[in-house]
């Protein structure tokens, strides 16, 4: 196994090598720290590399391995956290000048859970400012770059998480997703990203963007890795008021059961409008692959789907409520795009926010009705591949239409999996959404598709 193979190994491959004693957690951690030192100056995935903590975690994992593993499912697996997850004693910046010097006193629940599962923390990964802005040239924090093409953005807001995974700098990462910030970067970087059901994974200790739309979840290079990370994260947390008591399923075991007879719904309206021809072609090929695997694929309609963009009114109003005090007192500490996006939320009327929530309730009811007839919905994750920085830095660049917010509005689980490449060599992605708390089926479909294709095996030339 070459050093590149090691950097891109799956969680189960690493665990197998640990058990065979032909690799140790300290050895792997040192190799990745050296890789970060070599590659990250061009990628800017990391805000903080936690070298001492990583080596301490790795030594603890090594000791646990000698005791037989202590039943820790992610023992010695190197991970990174989007820099809006609070980490005790480690700066947590949210990509913002406002919090540039903040050192939390406690870990976010997700950080605690991955630590308890035996993982190794390699560091904190850059995020778009407060998960909502964009880093322009001259911003205090440099934007992460897309390892597939450094002129292109890796998506956001979990930009560092995606860049680090794509470059083989971590084996798992956490992101957050308010309107697609896990799935979008996964789509733009040929990764797997899961936005779980609202309430499935705790948000306690994760900085807020929009209370009713925010989700936390895993990003990885394979569906199986994503399932293993979710297994360690999922479960009730009294510290998050939205956390569910719904029992946690086994996510990894059913992955290999296949999808013969499974009903796949395709909502074409909204989700294919404005899609690039290459995206449409890749999507139709993905549908053909699902049929070959035995799935029953049918078109479905969600009557209110065009109202999905009311999501933006909810997001902006809630973001203003969260930031109002700081943005009024210290507007100079907010980047240009974030400041105006947040302030714009203060211009939304109370009645408009309420009507947007009522639209949301209607959309949710309609999606649940459709999901009585099909097991999952599939769409392209994004209508276009990753844009260049030049495009998003243009002052006229707005908030582009997206296929991901409908599942933040409805709280349903949604997964992004690689489904092809554009003629420019940029990744394309398939989105699979399912019933509330049915992450197991969503992951099973993603795994079946992934195993039938080769897209996830491609690596960028860095």
């Amino acid at each position, binding site marked *: 196994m070459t050093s590149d193979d090691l950097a891109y190994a799956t969680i189960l491959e690493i665990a197998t090598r640990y058990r065979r004693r032909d690799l140790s957690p300290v050895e792997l951690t040192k190799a990745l720290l050296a890789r970060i030192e070599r590659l990250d100056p061009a990628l800017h995935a990391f805000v903080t590399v936690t070298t001492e903590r990583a080596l301490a975690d790795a030594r603890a994992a090594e000791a646990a391995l000698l005791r037989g593993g202590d039943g820790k499912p992610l023992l010695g697996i190197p991970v990174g956290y989007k820099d809006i997850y609070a980490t005790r004693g480690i700066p947590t910046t949210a990509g913002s000048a406002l919090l540039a010097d903040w050192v939390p006193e406690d870990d976010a629940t997700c950080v605690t859970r991955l630590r308890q599962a035996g993982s190794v923390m390699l560091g904190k990964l850059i995020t778009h400012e407060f998960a909502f802005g964009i880093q322009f040239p001259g911003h205090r924090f440099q934007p992460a770059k897309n390892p597939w093409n450094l002129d292109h953005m890796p998506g956001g807001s979990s930009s560092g998480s995606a860049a680090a995974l794509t470059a083989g700098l971590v084996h798992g990462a956490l992101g957050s997703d308010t309107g697609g910030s896990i799935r979008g970067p996964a789509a733009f970087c040929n990764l797997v990203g899961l936005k779980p059901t609202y309430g499935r994974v705790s948000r306690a200790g994760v900085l807020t963007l929009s209370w009713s739309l925010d989700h936390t979840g895993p990003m990885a290079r394979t569906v199986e890795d994503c399932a293993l990370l979710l297994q360690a994260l999922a479960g009730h947390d009294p510290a998050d008021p939205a956390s569910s008591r719904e029992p946690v399923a086994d996510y990894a075991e059913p992955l290999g059961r296949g999808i013969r007879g499974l009903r796949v719904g395709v909502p074409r309206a909204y989700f294919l409008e404005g899609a690039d021809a290459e995206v449409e072609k890749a999507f139709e090929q993905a549908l053909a692959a699902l049929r070959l695997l035995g799935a029953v694929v049918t078109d479905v309609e969600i009557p209110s789907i065009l109202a999905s963009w*009311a999501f933006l*009114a909810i997001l902006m109003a809630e973001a203003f409520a969260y930031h109002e005090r700081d943005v009024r007192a210290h507007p100079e500490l907010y980047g240009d795009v974030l400041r105006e996006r947040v302030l*714009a939320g203060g211009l*939304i009327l109370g009645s408009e926010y*309420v*009507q947007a*929530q*009522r639209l949301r309730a209607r959309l949710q009811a309609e999606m649940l009705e459709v999901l009585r007839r099909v097991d999952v919905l599939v769409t392209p994750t994004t209508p276009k591949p990753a844009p260049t920085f030049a495009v998003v830095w243009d002052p006229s660049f707005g908030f582009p239409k997206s296929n991901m917010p409908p599942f933040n509005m409805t709280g349903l689980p949604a997964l992004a999996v690689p489904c092809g490449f554009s003629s420019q060599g940029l990744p394309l992605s398939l989105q699979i959404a399912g019933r509330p708390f049915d992450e197991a089926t969503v992951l099973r479909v993603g795994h079946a598709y992934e195993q039938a294709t080769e897209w996830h095996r491609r690596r960028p030339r860095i």
Partner: protein
Amino acid sequence: MTLDEVRARMKAAGIEIAENRLEMVRRLLTDALAPVQAFDSRGARALEPAVTFDAIQGAEPRRDDDDE
């Protein structure tokens, strides 16, 4: 939404936004509010109940004869 409407909302909310950023804000608000303004809410269900309750564990069951 027009720029004048954006300015009127800014005045009412006590919010200042640089003049050269107003067009971006106008487009953002127009996109965000388009579905809301197109929405005929008369046929939509209300958002109520805003809160729901479960019985507090450990409370004595209520007896029908309590009212007597």
